[in-house]
């Protein structure tokens, strides 16, 4: 029996097309600890957002907050914060984690 294979590519050759299919990984699940911000210490300087490799800090108007869907928990934001306003807290301490 021949199972007819459905074409993945519309073209003769292999091209990717982000408009048709944008890939995305659940990198949030990689995290072993998460950044927790002490808003009182934050001066909204933005360095945490700028240095964040996955660029996943959301601008909240007066502070930045990691998008936990993508934050890999590298801890750079905590290390680079000039005011030490971010602490990396093990995921086990969060019920949703």
């Amino acid at each position: 029996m021949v199972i007819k294979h459905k074409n993945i590519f519309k073209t003769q050759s292999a091209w990717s097309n982000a408009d048709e299919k944008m890939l995305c990984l659940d990198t949030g699940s990689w995290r072993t600890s998460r950044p927790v911000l002490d808003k009182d210490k934050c001066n909204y300087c933005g360095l945490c957002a700028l240095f964040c490799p996955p660029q996943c800090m959301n601008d909240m108007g007066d502070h930045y907050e990691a998008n936990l869907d993508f934050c890999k928990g590298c801890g750079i934001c905590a290390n680079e914060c000039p005011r030490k306003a971010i602490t990396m807290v093990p995921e086990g301490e969060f019920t949703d984690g």
Partner: protein
Amino acid sequence: MVSAQKGQVRVITGNATGAYGAMLCRPDVIAAYPITPQSEIAEQLAQFKADGVIDSEFVEVEGENSAMNVVLAASVAGGRVFTATSSYGLVFMYDALQETSGFRAPVVMVNANRETPGIHAVSSGQQDMISARDAGWVQIITENDQEILDQIIMAYMLAEDNDILLPVMVNYDGFYLSYLAEAVEIYQIEDVDKFLAPLKKQSPRQKLVPGVSQGCGTHGMEMGYVEARYKHTQAMERVKNKVDEIDKKFGDYFGRYYGGQIEEYRTDDADIIIIASGSATGTARTVIDAKREQGIKVGLIKLRLFRPFPAERLIQALKGKKAIGVIDRSICFGWKYGPICMELKVLTQELGSVPILSYIDGLANLDITIPHIGRVVDEVNEAAKGKPYQDVTWIPMEE
């Protein structure tokens, strides 16, 4: 019925012809690196550029690998491209050759056949082409200067056809054809434009455009890879008939026909067939005529298309023949037969138990001479009569 005007006839070498052929097709980007015996193409194209004969982007690359990569990328971006190489140059392109066919980029390349393996033979032989046979390219072998020019034009028609979209390698014997000066008709460029015009009427092929979210060379994962490979081989199958069609169109337009995948010479009533390719086929015709006069019913098949292998046309032409001799200008490591002979052996079931004699000749600039081919005809003729024969003969080793 010929609709093209008469072109200018000039006595030029095969290499120069290659450059003229490319020029007539107005490539957008040309990249070439010199190597004996191809260098004259790179020089001639550079001269065309210097003289303002072509307005193509001309990239004087630092190596053949780059030449192939430059034209591959420009082709993927939508351009018409040309490059030329030989021998180790072709080998040095090997990774890019695979990419080019895998990306289905309609690159046209001329390859002046030269030896490659370890022993540095600066001399003719088809070994370079043979070592690239599984690179997924269409490979065509030409016999004389005019055919080089004509085949380059036909190569664009083939490569850029939306049904095909494959790179095409136009081969000719280095040293023999590369330096052979013959009278060549160089068509009027407007006529070539007209001939290639149908390509522009096709729906545009996929192109790489900045700002558009599309990428070429995506990782083919599992079925994606299988599908791309499958489509590639299907396109290869389509090449065969397309080559015949284009040959007909070309002949109707410019007045020269080459037979498409194979050219048959005095095969109709022949009992035995000699199969050869490239410049040796010219010499072989002379021998066939002479042997015919001696009463030997021999015919010649000139193999023009090597990849894809023209199995169906060969079966048709060889059916009922009593013996076949194949002359190879290269060898096939791992098999004792020459490469073309080895491929032909796949057709044994269709051809029946007919003797197929393999001959290795013309390596390293050694001539495939009239007496050599005469010997092949005589031995194949004896084999056809049921006499015992030698499977493989290295002609120069037995002289």
